[in-house]
């Protein structure tokens, strides 16, 4: 009885989507910083997942498997002007007059950070977001990126150092 139930659940793509749709959409939004692109990659991810799903035999970790597909979709995604649409960061911050309102300042710091994350090379961005915002350990990051744990860790640290450089102009104004 239990085995039938389990087989059924493993076989149930709708249930898989129910379980992970919010998390995967959140992840893709964080990766792309753009709702429309995240939506496209979401379709792409689950379409691919469905095609591979029936051939998937008792995969113990559907979550990691979906993250891996989503990440590959993101890494392979090319958008015209992807890097060009973003503004040069440090210069912009320096020329900006500090706002007196603390709330506005807080929003600015968050926006600046988001832009800095968007400027990271894609693999570093994916590794950093998985580690910092999704709480993955390096083993999980390495499984999703398809690399060694050492390489996963290196990607996260490269991202951190780059973020610190990009955010060097941030000043505490409160």
């Amino acid at each position, binding site marked *: 009885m239990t085995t039938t139930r389990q087989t059924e659940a493993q*076989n149930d*793509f709708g249930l898989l989507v129910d379980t992970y*749709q919010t998390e995967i*959409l959140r992840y893709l939004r964080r990766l792309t910083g753009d709702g429309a692109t995240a939506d496209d990659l979401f*379709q792409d991810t*689950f379409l691919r997942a469905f095609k591979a799903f029936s051939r998937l035999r008792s995969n113990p970790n559907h979550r990691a498997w979906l993250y891996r597909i989503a990440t590959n979709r993101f890494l392979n995604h090319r958008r015209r002007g992807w890097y060009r649409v973003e503004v040069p960061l440090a210069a912009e911050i320096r020329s900006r007059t500090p706002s007196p309102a603390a709330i506005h300042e807080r929003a600015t*710091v*968050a926006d600046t950070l988001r832009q800095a994350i968007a400027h990271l090379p894609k693999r570093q961005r994916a590794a950093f977001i998985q580690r910092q*915002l999704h709480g993955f350990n390096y083993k999980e990051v390495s499984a999703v990126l398809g690399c060694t744990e050492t390489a996963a860790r290196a990607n996260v640290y490269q991202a951190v150092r780059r973020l610190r450089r990009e955010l060097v102009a*941030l000043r505490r104004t409160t």
Partner: protein
Amino acid sequence: MTCDDFAHRVDDLLAGDGTARTTAALGRHADSCCACKKEWQRVDLIRRALSRAGTADEPGATDVRRARERLRTALDRAGHPPIRFGKVTTPVGSVFIGLTEHGVCDLTFGQASEQDYRAALLRRAPEAWRDDVSLMPVAEQLAAYFAGRLTRFTVPLDLRQVTSFTARVLRETRKVRFGRLTTYGALADRLGSPGASRAVGGALGRNPVPIIVPCHRVLAQGGRLGGFTGGLPTKRLLLRVEGHQFSDPMPTLF
């Protein structure tokens, strides 16, 4: 702690590898070193922004619903519609019926359990759930057919999952009227493929909606019954409903 250590430990902290002790030690060093104090304030800003960065991209329930709807459409367009199904009792036993938004896509003679039938549907459909209400028009037509009140099924069909040859064979089969009979060979001739009776037989064997697409009206040469997915007794019974007597089975090879 040296200022060098400080810089490295800050990396640890921002990589998510720091502990409360790391934070405390970094704070102590920052208090004693003017240059690092500024850096520490910046790091504090980054950390607080990071903890908020997660929520900025949080998809709302509407976003998720919209993405899910788009996924359903995309899967449907790729030939993988969700399937509703139900079980109907007929004089030939219970049958399972699968239905997409476009029409009936499956009719299976029901020896299997509901769970097994659903599992079989899920091998090609992303979603499958029981919905007897949607199936009522089909159930009504089946009941009318077995009562002899209906000679032509008008429920829409969704036959996208079959190959184009099978689809052509099934279309031609639908033209064989209630009470009439034909043969695999005659059907092949009508399709412009004389001699392809074997292929026609194979295609009919893959008929996903028997009874509704009346493959039981197609017999082998010389009045032999031929084959039927639901078993020859069922074929015989269906033909009897349509006024043919095959009560005394003709000898067949199978």
